[in-house]
């Protein structure tokens, strides 16, 4: 019997620093598989965020830049404007993208920059230790919301796909998750579509992945998957919000 399963070429041999039960590893793999399948590894530049994925450049085996907090879309803009022949993707968390980087992501999407964003939404700040994010659910506890998120004081969680879908500029906006195997395949399809739109120079592409953070949620990995499905998915519905064909 031949080899049936192997590590994507676009991943290095390094062990990740991610916590047990964290979904970053799955998403890294999906992105790497797509890069392999499209044969773009040697023309791709990734942009790492500030947050848990700050060292994503240790795990992806392609050219990489490391951004300041929230600024990855501006760096990807710089790359694609001066080297439109390269493929660029930003990999950002919810604090990075939906809080400090809100200006950069909205304007990059609105300009229709031809790069791809992978947005990991786990409703909390991971790397800095469980502080409240713009995507934290009402009542969800965080180290900076010890009694749970008070929406009277902090507003409701921001839904990025819905927000970006209101832009009149054509784009590909999709929300997926990797909480169960059946979702993983769909997520990969969306990621592949996103990179294909970029490769065809069609539009900006954005795939949100509803994710978990067992460590900062204070749950086991299994409980995290269940909590995410019961609590996050009803508020963050899955699906394609916008395609450039529309």
């Amino acid at each position, binding site marked *: 019997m031949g080899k049936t399963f192997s590590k994507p070429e676009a991943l290095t041999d390094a062990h990740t620093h991610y916590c047990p039960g964290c979904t970053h590893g799955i998403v890294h793999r999906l992105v790497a598989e797509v890069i392999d399948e499209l044969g773009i*590894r*040697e*023309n*791709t*530049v990734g*942009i*790492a965020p500030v947050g848990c994925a*700050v*060292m994503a*450049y240790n795990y992806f*085996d*392609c*050219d*990489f*830049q*490391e*951004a*300041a907090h929230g*600024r990855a879309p*501006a*760096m*990807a*803009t*710089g*790359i694609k*404007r*001066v*080297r439109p*022949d*390269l493929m660029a993707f930003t990999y950002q968390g919810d604090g990075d993208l939906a809080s400090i980087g809100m*200006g*950069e992501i909205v*304007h990059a999407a609105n300009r229709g920059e031809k790069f791809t964003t992978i947005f990991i939404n786990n409703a909390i700040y991971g790397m800095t230790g469980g502080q409240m994010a713009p995507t934290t659910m009402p009542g969800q506890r965080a180290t900076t919301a010890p009694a749970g998120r008070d929406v009277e004081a902090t507003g409701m969680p921001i839904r990025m796909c819905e927000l970006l879908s209101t832009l009149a500029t054509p784009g590909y906006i999709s929300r997926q998750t990797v909480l169960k195997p059946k979702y993983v395949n769909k997520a990969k399809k969306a990621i592949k579509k996103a990179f294909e739109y970029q490769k065809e120079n069609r539009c900006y592409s954005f795939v949100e992945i509803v994710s978990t953070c067992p460590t900062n949620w204070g749950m086991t990995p299994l409980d995290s998957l269940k909590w995410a499905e019961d609590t996050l998915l009803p508020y963050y519905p899955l699906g394609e919000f916008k395609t450039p064909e529309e």
Partner: protein
Amino acid sequence: MAKVLMKGNEAIGEAAIRAGCKNYFAYPITPQSEVAEYLAKRMPEVDGVFLQGESEVAVGYMIFGAAACGERVMTTSSSPGVSLMSEAISYIAGARCPAVFVNIMRGGPGLGGILPSQADYFQATKGGGHGDYRLLVMAPEGVQEAVDMTMKAFDLAEKYRGPVMIMGDGLIGQMMEPVEFPEDFTPTPMNNDDWATSGMATRGTDKRNLVKSLFLDPKQLNDHNLLLKAGYDRMRQEEVRYEGYNTDAEYKLLIVSYGTMSRVCKTAIDTMKEEGLEIGMVRPQTLFPFPEQAIHDAAAKESCSHVVSIELSMGQMVEDVDRCVKGQRPVTWYGECGGDIPTPEEIIDHVKSLLKN
């Protein structure tokens, strides 16, 4: 090439193109918006990139992303905008990418004013952003020198793999002067295959490049900072530029002044010379590296009894001048920082009052 009459801001834009920079990102701010307006027209003519970013913060990182690909890139701004870009400048310095920043200074702090100023001296030469980094800072005295320095800035940014800044005050951006663009200028070719994220296929290699400023290991970070320091020390050895004005004379007093302010000082020095009063001046053309030895030696001249730093700020460069004079002579400050520029007559009065005391 024959001389042409150009506004400083437009001449800086043209100089960038002539130096082989085909990539420009910017955000509008007075008094430098003409650079963006000029390049919005001009860049498409040379198949270059022009993009107006959503903020100076974003523009700083567009510059970073483009520079990290190994492409020549420039932005221009003015004081409050440069404050916003300072975060990116720190990252660019930390990640060792060549890029050119132009600050056409206006008054501060805060929103300040829109008239000429030199109040960003500390910001440019002492940091601005966080961490241990230096900018190579050049300060033109007029439109021609702004052109010459802009064209040279890209080679220097690549030589040192870091950000370089042109510091002009609002007057240099706004005034028109005859300028000549060198015809025989050839940009020094940059070999960036060992660091730029230009795509492995572009480089014909299977070795990827990383552009980053994160070093969690204390020894690695210290070594990285030592590497940066070695570059700054080399700048101190190789890049100091200054002009001595009337420094062959037996001057009674030494002026240190740069940019527009030094042009006014030259007029004052000429007038006093006609009256029989010799005054010398050292005009730093690089603010970092600073002409430390030149100022030290000029102050040491036996005929010289006093050193005055004349600036469009409330006394910033004077701290460096004082550091260089090392107590040999009294060092004082004179200047204005509201947008008006001291006249030759005011400078003459001030110099004479210093010599009387």
